């Protein structure tokens, strides 16, 4: 396949798949005469989506949800980098804490939401905490892996250049872990979005998650689907922002320039 074709591929395949999915969806609900209370037709969801976008309270809810996601994500990145670097550098500490880290990682954090609401109130904080908690682990683990993945040869070069520990850390470790950090951030931003929405499901009276619950309780399936669509778009945009940040920050890494070479 020519580079030009490769570059055009996403612009052809993605819209085509969307069209196929929507047509299949429409065909299924129409041919099988599916009750719109259970599975609404795409045109009803489309109409509901447009209606949703025209409501000022939707945009107020978007601001709330996105704020929760971004604040939670930033906290997760800061904490993930700090903890990941410390654990990556101090092996005995990592070995000592590993069982606890695994337990904390596999614990169903969503189950804590009712407690978070009681501890942190039903405002922004409880959702930010959940978003940060969900995003923290993939970021921290990737950073830890990044710190551990610095090649010994590179360290020896730094030593031979009489680099201080600070210089080695800033110019070798931090640089080496950046691709890993971005890998964790790409997963983390998605999880932070889920955390904020689940938090809104179960506490407070703001945000898109809350609107989803309200629509479900009203048996308004089309509006529920429209809200899910809107949430998915927000999640996609946030993911793309992180992805673009990666291209900007680590243009030298193979995961970025390799892709650029392919699409060039």
């Amino acid at each position, binding site marked *: 396949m020519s580079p030009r074709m490769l570059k055009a591929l996403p612009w052809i395949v993605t819209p085509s798949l969307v069209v196929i999915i929507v047509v299949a969806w429409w065909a299924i609900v129409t041919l099988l005469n599916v009750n719109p209370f*259970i599975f609404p037709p795409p045109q009803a969801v489309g109409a509901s989506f447009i209606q949703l976008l025209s409501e000022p309270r939707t945009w107020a809810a978007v601001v709330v949800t996105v704020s929760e996601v971004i604040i939670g994500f930033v906290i997760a990145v800061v904490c993930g980098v700090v903890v990941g670097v410390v654990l990556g550098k101090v092996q005995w500490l990592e070995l000592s804490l590993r069982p606890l880290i695994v337990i904390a990682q596999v614990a169903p954090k969503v189950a804590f939401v009712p407690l978070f609401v009681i501890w942190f109130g039903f405002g922004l904080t409880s959702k930010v905490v959940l978003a940060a908690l969900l995003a923290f682990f993939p970021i921290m683990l990737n950073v830890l892996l990044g710190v551990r993945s610095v090649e010994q040869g590179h360290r020896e070069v730094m030593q031979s250049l009489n680099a201080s520990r600070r210089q080695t850390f800033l110019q070798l470790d931090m640089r080496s872990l950046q691709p890993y950090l971005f890998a964790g951030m790409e997963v983390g931003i998605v999880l932070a979005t889920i955390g904020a929405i689940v938090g809104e499901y179960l506490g407070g009276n703001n945000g898109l998650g809350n609107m989803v619950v309200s629509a479900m309780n*009203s048996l308004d399936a089309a509006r529920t689907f429209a809200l899910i669509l809107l949430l998915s778009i927000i999640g996609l945009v946030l993911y793309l922002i992180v992805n673009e940040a990666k291209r900007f920050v680590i243009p030298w890494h193979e995961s970025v320039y390799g892709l650029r070479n392919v699409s060039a």
Partner: protein
Amino acid sequence: MITAVTHRTTRSPKRRIAKIVAATLAAGALALSGCASSAPEPGGTEAAPEAKLTKMVVVTFLPLESFTFTPEMFAYAGGYFEKHGLDVQLQPVQGTAAAIQTLLGGATPITRASTVDVFPAMEKGQPIVAIGTMAYKSNLRVASAKENAIESAADMEGQVMGMGSIGGTSEKMLNLALDDADVPRDSVTRQAVPVTGATFELVKQKQLAGYIVSLDTSIALAEQNPDAVISSADLGDAPDLQTWITTPANLEDPDKVKDIQAFLSAIREATQFVIDDAENDFENVLQILRDSGDFAFAALDDDDVARQALEVYTSQTWIDAEGDRALLENDFDGWVAAYETYAKSGLLEGGKDPLEWITDDYLPTD
């Protein structure tokens, strides 16, 4: 927390023994109390052969962790479903809306829902028919603190109120109560909160003036917090009937009608047993539920909470207040009155005949 869903294709020997022992004890206790001749025996004593049981999935609108679902739980634990030839799987879903969708999707032949939740779907022409009344009134309670007691809808004006989820049954009942008291709806700020006893901390912290809870939770909360005020806060005055619902398509299928009637018979007999056991302070009911091992939740393990909750259900909820209707028999006047009240409040458009959506024709006749 309840153990999985209560379905077992092959019942364990342990559970079977527990049930038989419990049923025997219950029958004995009733005999000793002098009412054995009039009260029905637990259904387990007449269990039909398992090979002939018809499988039936029945959804409940919340997890089975509340005495709200005593009829279903007791019919299961007491063997009433088996007695009527059914192998019932009780499958909880999250909320009444999900239960209604499950019914419409054909995954369950019958479920129960409040008028406040099911009327909007019925008015929009959804094929749903009410075939028996399980609860003649709402049992929602408001928990607040003595220093800012919420004892009426009027007390909520300008306050922050918590509820399980926005737009759900609690909020609809709140709106009706506020309308009735001429309190502007938007004067009350609503917050979704966990409807557990722990949320009372938010009331103590004055983040909430109060929150709407189930009967079980309100009783447990009152026992644990001397400073708690539990009130219906006029929520119970708004008309709300909880009816068993199915679809017209199910009622056109003779086999399904047979199963539905068997289910309702089991529910009615189980409910009657619970009502009759009031004079024993529900000792037999609690023993059967506990010994079955099928259900485990805090209120069930607490004698005081369990007995207080069952007292309210058996004396105020499952029976018609006027006393002129048999168990599960529909209250047509109450049904129409509820529709008109909801239409007046704006919850419904109005102008339809709600009697088209309800029938007594499928109630058990035995």
